């Protein structure tokens, strides 16, 4: 996966709570055999509605998804993260994530920004009022800033997850740090095992 240090841009305000992974990517999409193309399935049940926020021209080109509380609860499907990323989002902000979704996010390089409720509400109102509001998420420092409204806050990011994101290490990447040990282990396997 790609390393991510700074996410800078505008946000789409998805002002709903308890958006579960079934809503992020409906189960019909799970039959696919590819890892890509899930952007079309993102919120597909809602996107038919004209006034759904993702259809609002003013938010076109945003790279941050601003969600409500309990974002990404429900089934463990990793496809939810793929859909959000493939649509073009690099970070998701919420006051509380479903734990599996959050874990899946970091494994795929999508930055989960879990902020306090006050910050979340301030941001939601500000982005709804001004779609061009510039937001900066700094992974190294675990900070989120929106200078135009004087917002500067921090979020929780464990050392190991920060390391993963900054270095672009997925699970395979982490394991491949031990590639020398894997190689020497292979050299020691019994010959009858081929």
């Amino acid at each position, binding site marked *: 996966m790609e390393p991510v240090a700074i996410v800078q841009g505008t946000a789409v305000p998805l002002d709903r709570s308890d958006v579960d992974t079934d809503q992020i990517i409906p189960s019909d999409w799970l039959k696919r*055999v590819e890892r890509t193309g899930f952007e079309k399935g993102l919120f597909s049940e809602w996107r038919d509605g004209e006034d759904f926020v993702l259809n609002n021209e003013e938010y076109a080109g945003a790279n941050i998804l601003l969600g409500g509380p309990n974002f990404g609860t429900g089934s463990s499907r990793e496809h939810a993260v793929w859909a959000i990323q493939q649509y073009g989002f690099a970070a998701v902000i919420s006051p509380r994530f479903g734990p599996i979704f959050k874990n899946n996010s970091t*494994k795929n390089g999508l930055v989960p920004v879990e902020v306090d409720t006050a910050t979340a509400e301030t941001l939601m109102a500000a982005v709804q009022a001004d779609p061009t509001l510039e937001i900066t998420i700094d992974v190294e420092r675990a900070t989120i800033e929106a200078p135009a409204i004087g917002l500067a806050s921090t979020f929780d990011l464990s050392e190991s997850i920060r390391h993963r994101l900054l270095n672009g290490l997925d699970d*395979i990447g982490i394991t491949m740090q*031990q590639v020398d040990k894997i190689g020497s282990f292979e050299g020691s396997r019994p010959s009858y095992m081929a």
Partner: protein
Amino acid sequence: MSEETTGPKTNIENGPRTIIEKVWDRHVVHAAEGEPSLLYIDLHLVHEVTSPQAFDGLRLTNRPIRRPELTVATEDHNVPTADIDQPIADPVSKAQVDTLRKNCDEFGVKLYSMGDINQGIVHVIGPELGLTQPGMTVVCGDSHTSTHGAFGALAFGIGTSEVEHVLATQTLQQSAQETMAITVNGELPEGSTAKDVVLAILGAADTGGGIGAIAEFRGPVIEALSMEGRMTVCNMSIEFGAKAGMIAPDDTTFEYLKGRPNAPSGAEWDAAVADWKTLRSDEGATYDREIIIDGADIVPYMTWGTNPGQVLPISADVPDPASFEDPGASDAAARALEYMGLTAGTPLKDVPVDTVFIGSCTNSRIEDLRAAAAVAKGRKVKDGMRTLVVPGSGLVKKQAEEEGLHTIFIEAGFDWREPGCSMCLAMNPDKLAPGERSASTSNRNFEGRQGRGGRTHLVSPAVAAATAIAGTFATPADLD
């Protein structure tokens, strides 16, 4: 947390170890405080359902398969078992099979396709081709990978992202599991089979009794089982929640393996056997959990409900939900009876059956077909009964035909099919209709498992065959 890092919990340096710990310890590539261990994987089996996105993930990240020669693929989960020379009708099934073929071709993985003599259910072909060997780690994107534990291998199912991880690194990050000993003492009564042994274990352990554990099956009854029987037992480890089940290898194991295409040969064979003989739990090794069963109590069993732990002897009556002490079990029984369309107090032997399925990675090997054929011989399937006999692989089918088993089945009125998973999970056209009742030699009786609204009862091959003839649940002895 240090015990988290060095393998199954009871591992003490130089102390007595179980076979579970011995095999685990042999495969630790890297262990660090507070992290899962990195285990080397000796054999990775792949099928069409859980692999496509793993291959696609490799493509996206430009990663090769580290050891393609330790990876073997087959088409099984949704291949049709009739008219296999025709294109697959279902578009999702067809896409999955086509994608597997394309991926194996691109990444250089050996694939056994529909129609190939070596094709079959992934957990049948691994052992049959001698790929599965004692002391190995074996993984596959399928929960019944535990089957391979019958050889003293540490074998378990993994998810799609883990499939990608194994393809790329030939390793897996694994947290420690508890160990569990399941001892079956004494001797089986005449007429009881390996399937009855595992159904008895399920009844004793319940569906959650093995959660978080790796089980070792041991004791005289287990040692007396053939390899086919041991595979039947290990296959259903996951049904009581265990991640894996293992049986220490012995002469029965070595005899089965000797001469198989991928088994070691010559001097390598002798070296391998000498090594495999060390794969036994040491005297004094301890387990975190233990179940002891007396083999003499094991009679032909069947499931009556909607989870594999809801088992009773075939001679019993449908249970009364009120008779369960635990309120949760009582509620579950009431729900199960409603779904299954059964009334408390009815003798199970009076319950009429619509479909008999003999197959699946639990019971589709040559010995299973022999057991069923012995019952079918010279008899006739009940009028109106639908029957499917689905061999586990092309090789099983060929062997059965050489022995004339197919003629016995066909003359008795059974439908003789091509290899695959078939009605075990009904991803192909072999399904139950709503309300239809099956006697099935497979491993899961969940609601809808064999088709929406279908009612599944798990039984042994001999009981399945006897039931096909009687029209209601029956043991072979009931036919005389």
